[in-house]
């Protein structure tokens, strides 16, 4: 078959992936047409550094919570083996993010459903609300790879371990968790990167009081209109994400 069939695709990825990245690098490394590192160095200023640190913290907490929920869940789903149940856990993944965040806004807000049922104060516009929204949005992305990894572990290996006198804790730590390592790592990547870089969740549930690095970059492009600074910060985020993904993917193989 002809190699020429790939040419439109190759032209497309050069035109719409490589060139845009060159554009963001150009903007990020210049100001008024002159070469500079100032847009990148700006990440160390407090107004940018604090949101970055907060993003890293919230997304790491999000990863930990998602793993703590998904690992026992994956094991439970594996033992039940119902395709319909797995389907139920996949479903919310296809629900429009903005709409499910809207639902959380209603649940958590002043006079919100949770507040009225349990007589607690509204936690809307806090880091906690943002964290809940992140976990909700990304949990299915942790459940699916972890469940798949557990489901692909052969029953006979587990039976053999029990026959040879292993207890449940040993089966978990010596067989199940190492066997699901690739799935767990891919769950980490799939949760960490979107959590680190999102700006909608913190915008809607943080109510402007929770500023993450995504919000800072978005503001540079929509409000402050400083595209050079926005691009420089975007490059920092891109390199940070690519490095951490490579690190995690390296651990996979």
């Amino acid at each position, binding site marked *: 078959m*002809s190699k020429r069939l790939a040419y439109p695709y190759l032209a497309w990825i050069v035109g719409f992936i490589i060139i*845009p990245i060159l554009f963001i690098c150009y903007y990020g490394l210049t100001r008024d047409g002159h070469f500079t590192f100032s847009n990148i160095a700006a990440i160390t200023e407090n107004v940018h550094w604090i949101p970055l640190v907060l993003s890293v913290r919230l997304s790491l907490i999000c990863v930990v919570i998602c793993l703590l929920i998904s690992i026992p869940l994956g094991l439970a789903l594996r033992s039940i083996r119902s395709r319909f149940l797995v389907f139920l856990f996949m479903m919310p993944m296809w629900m429009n993010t903005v709409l499910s965040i809207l639902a959380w806004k209603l649940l958590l807000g002043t006079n919100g459903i949770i507040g009225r049922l349990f007589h607690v104060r509204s936690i809307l516009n806090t880091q906690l609300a943002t964290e809940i929204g992140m976990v909700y949005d990304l*949990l299915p992305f942790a459940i699916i790879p972890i469940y798949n990894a557990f489901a692909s572990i052969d029953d006979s290996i587990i039976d053999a371990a029990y026959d040879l006198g292993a207890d449940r804790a040993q089966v978990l730590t010596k067989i199940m968790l190492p066997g699901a390592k690739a799935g767990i790592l891919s769950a980490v990547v799939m949760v960490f990167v979107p959590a680190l870089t999102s700006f909608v969740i913190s915008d809607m549930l943080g109510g402007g009081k929770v500023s993450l690095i995504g919000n800072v*970059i978005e503001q540079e492009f929509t409000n402050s209109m400083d595209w050079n600074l926005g691009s420089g910060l*975007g490059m920092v985020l891109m390199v940070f994400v690519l490095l951490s993904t490579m690190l995690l993917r390296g651990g996979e193989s």
Partner: protein
Amino acid sequence: MKKAYIGLILAFLYIPILVLIVLSFNNSKYYVSFGGWTLRWYKRVFTDETIRTAILSTALISMASALISTILGTLGAIGLRKLRIKRVALAISDIPLLNPDIVTGVSMMLLFVRFTELNTMTVLLAHITFEIPYVLLNVSPALLAWDDDLYHAALDLGAGSAYAFWRVVFPEIFPGILSGFLMAMTMSIDDFSITYFTRGAGVNTLSTMIYTELKRGVNPAMYALSTLLFLAVFVLLVLNNYREDAARR
């Protein structure tokens, strides 16, 4: 114990969705009080100009981008099999999967504004770009399973290369192409960040429309809209599951 745990997590995932569904039938503008049942928000979904336009452009953008990315991706996957730069090309087209959406969106916006103003077309170009890796993901395994000999046999028996492709190769890889298309379309419908940066003034998909509407206050028609979307996704996923089951048999 196990069932209680599963139930708890299911409740966490579905309570927000249920809240939206219940509110979509609530005959009161304010979500804090229940004013009896109504269908008027559903009526509004189809009469409100903003919502209708957003539904139409979402349908248009998702279908057109899925179609074009499926064609580009499928031809790309076929052509790449014989190309030495295959690994490099695949690594490049995967960049939108790894890169933060905000960076993908902003970088394309920077390119677009240099040559044109932002409009529906720029959103379409951006969507095609980030959908291509999903198409490759689905088509490439199907191509691995496909046997080159069959194609050559068809050529030996006198078929032209286009005819042989259409009659021999295409049916073999069609299930992969179809799931690539469906996945590309769902990704397009669900995208917010990339659309947000590459759309022009007045251009809205459902995601960006809901986001901008929310800044003005909650419109109960949004609840009806989300219920309809949820139903649509549910039906699509059930159908897709059924199709996979049928294919397996």
